[in-house]
Protein backbone atom coordinates (compact mmCIF):
# COMPACT_ATOMS: atom_id res chain seq x y z
CA UNK A 1 0.00 0.00 0.00
CA UNK A 2 1.17 3.56 -0.63
CA UNK A 3 2.93 5.27 2.23
CA UNK A 4 2.18 8.82 3.26
CA UNK A 5 3.19 11.37 5.87
CA UNK A 6 0.68 12.65 8.43
CA UNK A 7 1.45 15.66 10.60
CA UNK A 8 0.15 15.33 14.16
CA UNK A 9 0.51 18.63 15.94
CA UNK A 10 1.37 21.28 16.95
CA UNK A 11 -2.33 21.48 17.87
CA UNK A 12 -3.34 17.91 18.46
CA UNK A 13 -4.76 16.14 21.54
CA UNK A 14 -1.96 13.57 21.39
CA UNK A 15 0.83 16.10 21.92
CA UNK A 16 -0.02 17.27 25.48
CA UNK A 17 1.76 20.47 24.60
CA UNK A 18 3.11 22.22 21.58
CA UNK A 19 5.15 20.04 19.28
CA UNK A 20 4.77 18.15 16.05
CA UNK A 21 5.04 14.46 15.34
CA UNK A 22 5.35 13.69 11.66
CA UNK A 23 4.21 10.13 11.08
CA UNK A 24 4.80 8.02 8.00
CA UNK A 25 2.00 5.52 7.67
CA UNK A 26 1.45 2.47 5.54
CA UNK A 27 -2.30 2.01 5.71
CA UNK A 28 -2.96 2.00 9.45
CA UNK A 29 0.58 1.05 10.47
CA UNK A 30 3.23 3.50 11.60
CA UNK A 31 6.36 3.06 9.50
CA UNK A 32 8.49 6.03 10.49
CA UNK A 33 8.27 9.11 12.69
CA UNK A 34 10.06 12.43 13.03
CA UNK A 35 9.50 14.58 16.12
CA UNK A 36 9.83 18.35 15.79
CA UNK A 37 10.39 20.30 18.98
CA UNK A 38 11.30 23.84 19.91
CA UNK A 39 7.99 25.68 19.54
CA UNK A 40 8.23 27.21 23.03
CA UNK A 41 12.00 27.54 23.36
CA UNK A 42 12.49 30.50 25.68
CA UNK A 43 16.25 30.41 26.10
CA UNK A 44 16.18 29.88 29.87
CA UNK A 45 19.81 28.82 29.87
CA UNK A 46 20.89 32.10 28.29
CA UNK A 47 18.61 34.24 30.46
CA UNK A 48 20.03 32.68 33.61
CA UNK A 49 23.55 33.78 32.68
CA UNK A 50 22.40 37.26 33.75
CA UNK A 51 20.54 36.29 36.92
CA UNK A 52 21.97 35.65 40.36
CA UNK A 53 21.49 32.34 42.09
CA UNK A 54 18.27 33.30 43.88
CA UNK A 55 16.73 34.93 40.83
CA UNK A 56 17.09 31.74 38.82
CA UNK A 57 14.68 29.73 41.00
CA UNK A 58 11.45 31.19 39.53
CA UNK A 59 12.71 30.53 36.00
CA UNK A 60 13.19 26.88 36.93
CA UNK A 61 9.68 26.77 38.39
CA UNK A 62 8.40 27.71 34.97
CA UNK A 63 10.24 24.90 33.21
CA UNK A 64 7.33 22.58 33.89
CA UNK A 65 3.92 23.87 34.82
CA UNK A 66 2.78 20.50 36.16
CA UNK A 67 5.82 19.87 38.31
CA UNK A 68 7.28 23.22 39.31
CA UNK A 69 8.52 22.26 42.76
CA UNK A 70 10.69 19.38 41.56
CA UNK A 71 12.33 21.54 38.89
CA UNK A 72 13.08 24.36 41.29
CA UNK A 73 14.64 21.91 43.73
CA UNK A 74 16.57 20.18 40.99
CA UNK A 75 18.24 23.53 40.31
CA UNK A 76 18.70 24.32 43.99
CA UNK A 77 20.70 21.14 44.63
CA UNK A 78 23.03 21.91 41.71
CA UNK A 79 23.45 25.51 42.89
CA UNK A 80 24.29 24.29 46.38
CA UNK A 81 26.86 21.97 44.88
CA UNK A 82 28.37 24.90 42.99
CA UNK A 83 28.39 27.29 45.94
CA UNK A 84 29.17 24.77 48.65
CA UNK A 85 26.12 25.70 50.71
CA UNK A 86 25.10 23.86 53.86
CA UNK A 87 21.42 23.08 54.42
CA UNK A 88 19.75 22.48 57.82
CA UNK A 89 18.18 19.07 58.20
CA UNK A 90 14.72 20.44 58.90
CA UNK A 91 14.83 22.28 55.60
CA UNK A 92 15.71 19.03 53.82
CA UNK A 93 12.65 17.38 55.36
CA UNK A 94 10.42 20.27 54.30
CA UNK A 95 11.82 20.09 50.77
CA UNK A 96 11.21 16.35 50.66
CA UNK A 97 7.59 16.80 51.74
CA UNK A 98 7.09 19.51 49.10
CA UNK A 99 8.69 17.45 46.34
CA UNK A 100 6.70 14.32 47.07
CA UNK A 101 3.46 16.32 47.13
CA UNK A 102 4.40 17.80 43.78
CA UNK A 103 5.13 14.33 42.47
CA UNK A 104 1.64 13.15 43.43
CA UNK A 105 0.10 16.27 41.88
CA UNK A 106 2.13 15.75 38.71
CA UNK A 107 1.15 12.10 38.39
CA UNK A 108 -2.49 13.07 38.92
CA UNK A 109 -2.15 15.61 36.13
CA UNK A 110 -0.68 12.85 33.98
CA UNK A 111 -3.48 10.43 34.77
CA UNK A 112 -6.05 13.13 34.15
CA UNK A 113 -4.52 13.94 30.77
CA UNK A 114 -3.90 10.35 29.77
CA UNK A 115 -7.29 8.79 30.40
CA UNK A 116 -9.19 10.99 27.92
CA UNK A 117 -6.59 9.87 25.34
CA UNK A 118 -7.65 6.28 25.79
CA UNK A 119 -11.37 6.84 26.09
CA UNK A 120 -12.18 7.56 29.72
CA UNK A 121 -13.37 11.12 30.28
CA UNK A 122 -14.49 10.77 33.88
CA UNK A 123 -11.04 10.33 35.34
CA UNK A 124 -9.90 13.69 34.02
CA UNK A 125 -12.32 15.55 36.28
CA UNK A 126 -11.64 13.28 39.23
CA UNK A 127 -7.89 13.76 38.95
CA UNK A 128 -8.08 17.52 38.77
CA UNK A 129 -10.37 17.49 41.79
CA UNK A 130 -7.85 15.49 43.84
CA UNK A 131 -4.90 17.42 42.50
CA UNK A 132 -6.40 20.47 44.17
CA UNK A 133 -5.88 18.79 47.55
CA UNK A 134 -2.16 18.80 47.00
CA UNK A 135 -2.02 22.16 45.24
CA UNK A 136 -3.74 23.70 48.28
CA UNK A 137 -1.09 22.21 50.54
CA UNK A 138 1.70 23.44 48.28
CA UNK A 139 0.05 26.84 48.18
CA UNK A 140 0.34 27.00 51.96
CA UNK A 141 4.08 26.52 51.57
CA UNK A 142 4.93 28.66 48.57
CA UNK A 143 2.09 31.16 48.52
CA UNK A 144 0.94 30.52 44.98
CA UNK A 145 -0.87 27.73 43.27
CA UNK A 146 1.47 26.71 40.52
CA UNK A 147 4.85 28.44 40.56
CA UNK A 148 5.95 28.39 44.17
CA UNK A 149 9.46 29.89 44.24
CA UNK A 150 9.74 28.00 47.51
CA UNK A 151 13.23 26.51 47.93
CA UNK A 152 16.24 28.73 48.51
CA UNK A 153 19.92 28.04 48.15
CA UNK A 154 20.68 27.05 51.73
CA UNK A 155 17.18 26.15 52.88
CA UNK A 156 13.56 27.00 52.23
CA UNK A 157 11.57 30.23 52.07
CA UNK A 158 9.30 29.51 55.02
CA UNK A 159 8.60 26.81 57.55
CA UNK A 160 5.56 24.53 57.53
CA UNK A 161 2.52 26.57 58.62
CA UNK A 162 0.74 25.64 61.85
CA UNK A 163 -1.83 22.94 61.09
CA UNK A 164 -0.15 21.94 57.83
CA UNK A 165 0.77 18.48 59.10
CA UNK A 166 -2.75 17.84 60.31
CA UNK A 167 -4.29 18.89 57.03
CA UNK A 168 -1.73 16.90 55.04
CA UNK A 169 -2.45 13.73 56.99
CA UNK A 170 -6.22 14.12 56.59
CA UNK A 171 -5.96 14.80 52.87
CA UNK A 172 -3.61 11.91 52.26
CA UNK A 173 -5.94 9.57 54.11
CA UNK A 174 -8.79 10.69 51.90
CA UNK A 175 -6.62 10.50 48.78
CA UNK A 176 -5.65 6.88 49.47
CA UNK A 177 -9.34 5.94 49.34
CA UNK A 178 -9.79 7.95 46.18
CA UNK A 179 -6.89 6.07 44.56
CA UNK A 180 -8.79 2.84 45.14
CA UNK A 181 -11.74 4.37 43.32
CA UNK A 182 -9.48 5.14 40.37
CA UNK A 183 -8.22 1.59 40.33
CA UNK A 184 -11.78 0.26 40.37
CA UNK A 185 -12.67 2.59 37.52
CA UNK A 186 -9.63 1.84 35.35
CA UNK A 187 -8.38 -1.66 36.12
CA UNK A 188 -11.81 -3.12 35.44
CA UNK A 189 -12.61 -1.03 32.42
CA UNK A 190 -12.39 -3.03 29.21
CA UNK A 191 -11.90 0.09 27.11
CA UNK A 192 -8.92 1.18 29.18
CA UNK A 193 -7.34 -2.28 29.22
CA UNK A 194 -7.76 -2.88 25.49
CA UNK A 195 -6.16 0.45 24.68
CA UNK A 196 -3.18 0.04 27.03
CA UNK A 197 -2.31 -3.64 27.44
CA UNK A 198 0.16 -5.03 24.93
CA UNK A 199 0.71 -1.62 23.40
CA UNK A 200 3.96 0.35 23.35
CA UNK A 201 6.41 -2.31 24.46
CA UNK A 202 9.81 -1.07 25.64
CA UNK A 203 12.68 -2.97 27.20
CA UNK A 204 14.68 -1.70 30.15
CA UNK A 205 18.14 -1.94 28.59
CA UNK A 206 17.07 -0.22 25.38
CA UNK A 207 15.41 2.55 27.33
CA UNK A 208 18.40 3.23 29.54
CA UNK A 209 20.71 3.28 26.54
CA UNK A 210 18.42 5.83 24.90
CA UNK A 211 18.36 7.92 28.08
CA UNK A 212 14.83 7.20 29.30
CA UNK A 213 14.60 7.19 33.11
CA UNK A 214 12.23 7.61 36.02
CA UNK A 215 8.83 5.92 36.23
CA UNK A 216 9.18 4.76 32.63
CA UNK A 217 12.22 2.62 33.42
CA UNK A 218 10.70 1.38 36.67
CA UNK A 219 7.67 0.23 34.71
CA UNK A 220 10.03 -2.06 32.78
CA UNK A 221 10.79 -4.02 35.93
CA UNK A 222 13.88 -2.40 37.47
CA UNK A 223 13.56 -0.45 40.69
CA UNK A 224 16.31 2.00 39.72
CA UNK A 225 15.73 5.32 41.40
CA UNK A 226 18.16 8.22 41.88
CA UNK A 227 16.74 8.70 45.34
CA UNK A 228 18.62 5.62 46.47
CA UNK A 229 21.31 5.31 43.81
CA UNK A 230 22.79 8.80 44.17
CA UNK A 231 21.20 9.74 47.47
CA UNK A 232 20.40 13.35 48.23
CA UNK A 233 18.12 15.00 50.77
CA UNK A 234 17.04 12.69 53.62
CA UNK A 235 15.43 9.84 51.69
CA UNK A 236 17.52 7.26 53.55
CA UNK A 237 15.98 8.29 56.88
CA UNK A 238 12.33 7.80 55.95
CA UNK A 239 10.13 4.89 54.93
CA UNK A 240 9.15 4.35 51.33
CA UNK A 241 10.22 2.29 48.36
CA UNK A 242 10.90 2.89 44.72
CA UNK A 243 7.77 1.77 42.87
CA UNK A 244 8.41 -1.06 40.42
CA UNK A 245 6.21 -3.08 38.10
CA UNK A 246 6.46 -6.65 36.86
CA UNK A 247 7.22 -7.00 33.19
CA UNK A 248 4.09 -8.24 31.51
CA UNK A 249 5.22 -9.23 28.03
CA UNK A 250 8.25 -10.61 26.24
CA UNK A 251 8.76 -7.31 24.45
CA UNK A 252 9.01 -5.41 27.73
CA UNK A 253 6.72 -3.02 29.56
CA UNK A 254 3.52 -1.76 27.99
CA UNK A 255 1.35 1.31 28.58
CA UNK A 256 -0.57 -0.50 31.29
CA UNK A 257 2.66 -1.10 33.26
CA UNK A 258 3.47 2.57 33.03
CA UNK A 259 0.04 3.41 34.37
CA UNK A 260 0.41 0.92 37.22
CA UNK A 261 3.86 2.15 38.24
CA UNK A 262 2.64 5.71 38.59
CA UNK A 263 -0.29 4.58 40.73
CA UNK A 264 2.12 2.74 43.02
CA UNK A 265 4.45 5.70 43.05
CA UNK A 266 1.67 7.98 44.26
CA UNK A 267 1.03 5.62 47.19
CA UNK A 268 4.75 5.47 47.99
CA UNK A 269 5.03 9.25 47.84
CA UNK A 270 2.15 9.53 50.30
CA UNK A 271 3.95 7.10 52.62
CA UNK A 272 7.09 9.22 52.37
CA UNK A 273 5.20 12.40 53.22
CA UNK A 274 3.63 10.79 56.32
CA UNK A 275 6.95 9.31 57.37
CA UNK A 276 8.72 12.65 56.94
CA UNK A 277 6.02 14.46 58.93
CA UNK A 278 6.51 11.92 61.71
CA UNK A 279 10.26 12.26 61.91
CA UNK A 280 10.94 15.89 61.01
CA UNK A 281 13.47 17.44 63.43
CA UNK A 282 11.80 20.05 65.64
CA UNK A 283 8.34 18.59 65.10
CA UNK A 284 5.83 19.14 62.32
CA UNK A 285 3.63 21.44 64.40
CA UNK A 286 6.39 23.90 65.25
CA UNK A 287 6.75 27.03 63.16
CA UNK A 288 10.10 28.75 62.84
CA UNK A 289 10.37 32.27 61.52
CA UNK A 290 11.75 33.12 58.11
CA UNK A 291 15.55 32.83 57.91
CA UNK A 292 15.70 30.95 61.21
CA UNK A 293 18.78 28.76 61.24
CA UNK A 294 16.56 25.70 61.55
CA UNK A 295 15.30 26.26 58.00
CA UNK A 296 17.83 28.53 56.29
CA UNK A 297 21.58 29.02 56.40
CA UNK A 298 23.05 31.91 54.48
CA UNK A 299 24.97 30.54 51.52
CA UNK A 300 27.95 32.07 49.72
CA UNK A 301 26.69 34.24 46.87
CA UNK A 302 29.62 34.02 44.47
CA UNK A 303 31.08 31.08 42.63
CA UNK A 304 34.55 31.82 41.21
CA UNK A 305 35.73 30.57 37.84
CA UNK A 306 36.81 26.95 37.85
CA UNK A 307 34.11 25.80 40.24
CA UNK A 308 31.24 23.80 38.87
CA UNK A 309 28.34 21.86 40.25
CA UNK A 310 25.88 19.33 38.95
CA UNK A 311 23.12 17.24 40.41
CA UNK A 312 21.06 14.32 39.18
CA UNK A 313 17.52 14.66 40.49
CA UNK A 314 14.57 12.28 40.41
CA UNK A 315 11.93 14.40 38.75
CA UNK A 316 8.36 13.17 38.27
CA UNK A 317 9.21 12.33 34.64
CA UNK A 318 12.70 10.97 34.97
CA UNK A 319 16.15 12.26 35.67
CA UNK A 320 16.61 16.01 35.50
CA UNK A 321 20.16 17.27 35.71
CA UNK A 322 21.50 20.76 36.12
CA UNK A 323 25.08 21.72 35.41
CA UNK A 324 26.34 25.10 36.58
CA UNK A 325 29.73 26.62 35.87
CA UNK A 326 30.96 29.42 38.11
CA UNK A 327 32.83 32.58 37.18
CA UNK A 328 30.10 34.46 35.31
CA UNK A 329 28.76 37.93 35.86
CA UNK A 330 29.67 41.42 34.73
CA UNK A 331 33.36 41.22 35.64
CA UNK A 332 33.70 37.45 35.97
CA UNK A 333 33.46 37.50 39.76
CA UNK A 334 30.86 34.80 39.85
CA UNK A 335 27.67 36.47 41.04
CA UNK A 336 25.91 34.83 38.06
CA UNK A 337 26.57 31.39 36.62
CA UNK A 338 28.88 31.46 33.62
CA UNK A 339 26.88 28.67 32.02
CA UNK A 340 23.78 26.83 33.09
CA UNK A 341 22.84 23.62 31.34
CA UNK A 342 19.60 21.75 31.82
CA UNK A 343 18.99 18.09 31.09
CA UNK A 344 15.31 17.58 30.55
CA UNK A 345 14.09 13.98 30.77
CA UNK A 346 11.35 14.52 28.19
CA UNK A 347 13.68 16.09 25.61
CA UNK A 348 15.43 12.72 25.42
CA UNK A 349 12.35 10.56 25.92
CA UNK A 350 10.19 12.03 23.16
CA UNK A 351 12.60 11.04 20.32
CA UNK A 352 12.89 7.56 21.84
CA UNK A 353 9.13 7.08 22.09
CA UNK A 354 8.69 8.34 18.55
CA UNK A 355 10.86 5.45 17.37
CA UNK A 356 9.34 2.95 19.83
CA UNK A 357 5.88 3.41 18.32
CA UNK A 358 6.98 2.19 14.89
CA UNK A 359 5.02 -0.93 14.00
CA UNK A 360 1.91 -0.01 15.98
CA UNK A 361 -1.30 1.41 14.56
CA UNK A 362 -2.09 5.09 14.18
CA UNK A 363 -4.77 4.77 16.86
CA UNK A 364 -2.12 3.61 19.34
CA UNK A 365 -0.03 6.77 19.00
CA UNK A 366 -1.92 8.79 21.65
CA UNK A 367 -1.90 5.82 24.02
CA UNK A 368 1.84 5.25 23.67
CA UNK A 369 2.89 8.89 23.69
CA UNK A 370 0.66 9.78 26.61
CA UNK A 371 1.86 6.90 28.72
CA UNK A 372 5.38 8.42 28.87
CA UNK A 373 4.03 11.66 30.35
CA UNK A 374 5.36 14.26 27.92
CA UNK A 375 5.76 17.82 29.15
CA UNK A 376 6.80 20.40 26.60
CA UNK A 377 7.69 23.24 28.95
CA UNK A 378 10.77 21.40 30.13
CA UNK A 379 11.50 19.86 26.74
CA UNK A 380 11.89 23.18 24.95
CA UNK A 381 13.27 25.18 27.89
Amino acid sequence: MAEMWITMGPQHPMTHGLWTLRVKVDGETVVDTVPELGYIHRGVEKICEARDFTQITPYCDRLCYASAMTWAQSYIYAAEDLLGAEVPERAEYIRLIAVEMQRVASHLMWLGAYCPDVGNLTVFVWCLRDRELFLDLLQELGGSRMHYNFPRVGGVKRDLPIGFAMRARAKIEMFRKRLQEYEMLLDESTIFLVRTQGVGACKAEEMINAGVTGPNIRAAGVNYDIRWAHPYSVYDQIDGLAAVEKVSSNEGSDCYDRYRVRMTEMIESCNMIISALDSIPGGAETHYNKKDEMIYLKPPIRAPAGQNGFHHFEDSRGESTFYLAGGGGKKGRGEFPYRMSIRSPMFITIPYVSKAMIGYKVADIPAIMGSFDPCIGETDR
Partner: protein
Amino acid sequence: MQSISSEQNLSAVGMAVEDTNKRFGEAGISAEVCQHRSGRKYSFVHINCPPNHWVSLAKWLRFEQGVDYLSMITGIHFPLEFEFFSGQPGYAPGTPEKGWEVIIHLTRKGIKNPKLGEQTVINASKLVGMDVPLEYQVSLVLPQTDEPKVPSVQSIWEGADWNEKETWDLVGIEFEGHDNMMRVLNPHDSPPGFHPLQKQYKIRYHNHNEMYDDAQGFMRKPLDSDKKK
Protein backbone atom coordinates in the same frame (compact mmCIF):
# COMPACT_ATOMS: atom_id res chain seq x y z
CA MET B 1 14.47 3.98 51.69
CA GLN B 2 17.69 1.98 51.65
CA SER B 3 20.36 3.84 49.76
CA ILE B 4 23.98 3.60 48.71
CA SER B 5 26.26 4.34 51.65
CA SER B 6 29.25 6.65 51.44
CA GLU B 7 31.64 3.69 51.90
CA GLN B 8 30.15 1.90 48.89
CA ASN B 9 30.37 5.11 46.92
CA LEU B 10 33.99 5.80 47.88
CA SER B 11 35.23 2.30 47.12
CA ALA B 12 33.46 2.25 43.73
CA VAL B 13 34.83 5.68 42.78
CA GLY B 14 38.34 4.69 43.86
CA MET B 15 38.19 1.53 41.79
CA ALA B 16 36.89 3.32 38.70
CA VAL B 17 39.57 6.02 38.92
CA GLU B 18 42.31 3.43 39.35
CA ASP B 19 41.06 1.37 36.38
CA THR B 20 40.82 4.42 34.13
CA ASN B 21 44.29 5.67 34.99
CA LYS B 22 45.78 2.21 34.52
CA ARG B 23 44.12 1.69 31.15
CA PHE B 24 44.47 5.19 29.66
CA GLY B 25 47.14 6.92 31.75
CA GLU B 26 49.68 6.79 28.93
CA ALA B 27 47.26 8.28 26.42
CA GLY B 28 47.01 11.50 28.40
CA ILE B 29 43.64 10.72 29.98
CA SER B 30 43.60 11.43 33.69
CA ALA B 31 40.86 10.49 36.13
CA GLU B 32 40.45 11.82 39.64
CA VAL B 33 38.08 11.47 42.58
CA CYS B 34 35.94 14.58 42.97
CA GLN B 35 33.50 15.35 45.70
CA HIS B 36 30.17 17.14 45.63
CA ARG B 37 30.40 20.24 47.80
CA SER B 38 27.00 20.12 49.48
CA GLY B 39 24.42 17.73 50.88
CA ARG B 40 25.72 14.22 51.28
CA LYS B 41 29.13 15.11 49.80
CA TYR B 42 29.34 11.91 47.76
CA SER B 43 32.15 11.41 45.30
CA PHE B 44 32.14 11.05 41.54
CA VAL B 45 34.70 10.34 38.85
CA HIS B 46 36.06 13.30 36.94
CA ILE B 47 37.97 12.47 33.75
CA ASN B 48 40.03 14.93 31.71
CA CYS B 49 40.25 13.56 28.20
CA PRO B 50 41.91 14.90 25.03
CA PRO B 51 39.14 15.08 22.40
CA ASN B 52 40.89 12.70 20.00
CA HIS B 53 40.77 9.89 22.57
CA TRP B 54 37.14 10.44 23.52
CA VAL B 55 35.66 7.68 21.38
CA SER B 56 38.02 4.99 22.65
CA LEU B 57 37.40 6.08 26.23
CA ALA B 58 33.65 6.07 25.62
CA LYS B 59 33.72 2.56 24.14
CA TRP B 60 35.73 1.28 27.09
CA LEU B 61 33.39 2.92 29.61
CA ARG B 62 30.31 1.59 27.87
CA PHE B 63 31.33 -1.99 27.16
CA GLU B 64 33.84 -2.79 29.92
CA GLN B 65 32.92 -0.51 32.80
CA GLY B 66 29.15 -0.88 32.43
CA VAL B 67 28.42 2.85 32.02
CA ASP B 68 25.07 2.35 30.33
CA TYR B 69 23.59 5.82 30.45
CA LEU B 70 24.54 9.19 29.04
CA SER B 71 22.80 11.94 30.93
CA MET B 72 23.82 15.25 29.44
CA ILE B 73 26.26 16.97 27.08
CA THR B 74 27.11 20.58 27.84
CA GLY B 75 29.12 22.88 25.62
CA ILE B 76 30.75 26.00 27.06
CA HIS B 77 32.33 28.87 25.15
CA PHE B 78 35.39 30.54 26.71
CA PRO B 79 36.35 33.43 24.39
CA LEU B 80 39.50 35.51 24.87
CA GLU B 81 37.46 38.70 25.08
CA PHE B 82 34.04 38.89 26.68
CA GLU B 83 32.05 42.01 27.47
CA PHE B 84 28.97 41.50 29.58
CA PHE B 85 27.63 44.90 28.47
CA SER B 86 28.63 46.22 25.07
CA GLY B 87 31.18 49.01 25.36
CA GLN B 88 32.09 48.35 28.98
CA PRO B 89 35.41 46.83 30.04
CA GLY B 90 35.30 43.08 29.69
CA TYR B 91 37.43 40.23 30.83
CA ALA B 92 38.94 37.05 29.40
CA PRO B 93 37.21 33.85 30.50
CA GLY B 94 39.34 31.69 28.21
CA THR B 95 42.99 31.11 27.42
CA PRO B 96 44.65 30.21 24.09
CA GLU B 97 44.59 26.55 25.19
CA LYS B 98 41.00 26.60 26.46
CA GLY B 99 38.47 28.13 24.14
CA TRP B 100 35.70 25.58 24.40
CA GLU B 101 34.82 22.87 26.84
CA VAL B 102 32.49 19.96 26.33
CA ILE B 103 31.32 18.33 29.54
CA ILE B 104 29.63 14.95 29.43
CA HIS B 105 27.75 13.52 32.38
CA LEU B 106 27.46 9.76 32.44
CA THR B 107 26.00 7.39 34.97
CA ARG B 108 26.59 3.74 35.61
CA LYS B 109 23.18 2.32 36.45
CA GLY B 110 23.65 -1.38 35.90
CA ILE B 111 20.21 -2.04 34.47
CA LYS B 112 19.44 -5.50 33.07
CA ASN B 113 16.24 -6.71 31.44
CA PRO B 114 14.18 -8.69 33.93
CA LYS B 115 12.60 -11.99 32.91
CA LEU B 116 8.98 -12.16 31.86
CA GLY B 117 6.61 -11.70 34.78
CA GLU B 118 9.43 -10.74 37.11
CA GLN B 119 10.93 -7.59 38.49
CA THR B 120 14.46 -6.69 39.53
CA VAL B 121 14.40 -5.23 43.02
CA ILE B 122 17.93 -4.03 43.67
CA ASN B 123 18.89 -3.97 47.33
CA ALA B 124 21.15 -0.94 47.60
CA SER B 125 23.03 -2.07 50.70
CA LYS B 126 24.16 -5.32 49.04
CA LEU B 127 25.70 -3.79 45.92
CA VAL B 128 29.47 -4.11 45.64
CA GLY B 129 32.18 -3.38 43.08
CA MET B 130 31.02 -2.71 39.55
CA ASP B 131 27.33 -2.84 40.49
CA VAL B 132 27.40 0.32 42.58
CA PRO B 133 25.78 3.22 40.67
CA LEU B 134 28.37 5.83 39.85
CA GLU B 135 28.49 9.34 38.39
CA TYR B 136 31.07 10.28 35.77
CA GLN B 137 31.96 13.73 34.53
CA VAL B 138 34.12 13.82 31.41
CA SER B 139 35.69 17.08 30.34
CA LEU B 140 36.97 17.65 26.79
CA VAL B 141 38.90 20.90 26.43
CA LEU B 142 39.36 22.45 22.98
CA PRO B 143 41.74 25.31 22.08
CA GLN B 144 40.60 28.69 20.72
CA THR B 145 39.10 28.04 17.31
CA ASP B 146 36.21 29.16 15.16
CA GLU B 147 35.22 25.59 14.38
CA PRO B 148 35.14 23.53 17.55
CA LYS B 149 34.86 19.81 16.82
CA VAL B 150 34.66 16.69 18.96
CA PRO B 151 33.90 13.13 17.87
CA SER B 152 30.33 11.92 18.21
CA VAL B 153 29.34 9.05 20.52
CA GLN B 154 25.90 8.66 19.02
CA SER B 155 26.63 5.05 18.06
CA ILE B 156 27.75 4.13 21.59
CA TRP B 157 24.93 5.66 23.60
CA GLU B 158 21.73 6.20 21.70
CA GLY B 159 20.85 8.88 24.25
CA ALA B 160 23.74 11.02 23.00
CA ASP B 161 21.92 11.65 19.73
CA TRP B 162 19.61 14.46 20.79
CA ASN B 163 22.03 15.75 23.41
CA GLU B 164 24.56 16.32 20.63
CA LYS B 165 21.93 17.90 18.41
CA GLU B 166 21.07 20.33 21.19
CA THR B 167 24.71 21.17 21.92
CA TRP B 168 25.39 21.92 18.26
CA ASP B 169 22.19 23.91 17.93
CA LEU B 170 22.76 26.11 20.97
CA VAL B 171 26.54 26.22 21.39
CA GLY B 172 27.81 25.43 17.91
CA ILE B 173 30.11 22.55 18.72
CA GLU B 174 30.29 20.13 15.82
CA PHE B 175 30.12 16.41 16.45
CA GLU B 176 32.11 14.57 13.82
CA GLY B 177 30.37 11.47 12.58
CA HIS B 178 26.95 12.47 13.90
CA ASP B 179 24.22 11.22 11.63
CA ASN B 180 21.24 13.49 10.90
CA MET B 181 22.41 16.67 12.64
CA MET B 182 19.70 19.33 12.69
CA ARG B 183 18.27 22.28 14.59
CA VAL B 184 16.11 21.10 17.47
CA LEU B 185 15.33 24.08 19.70
CA ASN B 186 16.08 27.04 17.46
CA PRO B 187 13.87 27.60 14.40
CA HIS B 188 14.82 25.26 11.59
CA ASP B 189 15.55 28.16 9.26
CA SER B 190 17.99 29.90 11.65
CA PRO B 191 20.96 31.32 9.72
CA PRO B 192 24.05 29.11 9.60
CA GLY B 193 26.49 30.00 12.35
CA PHE B 194 23.80 31.26 14.73
CA HIS B 195 24.37 29.47 18.02
CA PRO B 196 22.91 31.67 20.77
CA LEU B 197 24.80 30.28 23.76
CA GLN B 198 28.10 31.49 22.31
CA LYS B 199 29.28 34.44 24.31
CA GLN B 200 29.30 37.01 21.51
CA TYR B 201 25.49 36.91 21.58
CA LYS B 202 24.48 39.23 24.41
CA ILE B 203 21.37 39.19 26.51
CA ARG B 204 19.31 42.32 26.48
CA TYR B 205 19.57 43.39 30.13
CA HIS B 206 16.96 45.80 31.39
CA ASN B 207 16.02 47.12 34.82
CA HIS B 208 12.56 46.99 36.30
CA ASN B 209 11.75 50.67 35.58
CA GLU B 210 12.24 50.03 31.94
CA MET B 211 9.92 47.06 32.15
CA TYR B 212 7.12 49.07 33.75
CA ASP B 213 7.46 51.98 31.33
CA ASP B 214 7.62 49.81 28.28
CA ALA B 215 6.40 46.34 29.04
CA GLN B 216 6.28 45.26 25.42
CA GLY B 217 9.76 46.57 24.69
CA PHE B 218 8.76 48.57 21.59
CA MET B 219 10.75 51.63 22.68
CA ARG B 220 13.79 49.71 23.83
CA LYS B 221 17.04 50.36 21.99
CA PRO B 222 20.26 48.39 21.98
CA LEU B 223 22.73 49.59 24.59
CA ASP B 224 25.20 50.68 21.93
CA SER B 225 22.67 52.51 19.71
CA ASP B 226 24.21 55.95 20.32
CA LYS B 227 27.71 54.80 19.38
CA LYS B 228 29.20 55.27 15.93
CA LYS B 229 30.08 51.97 14.42
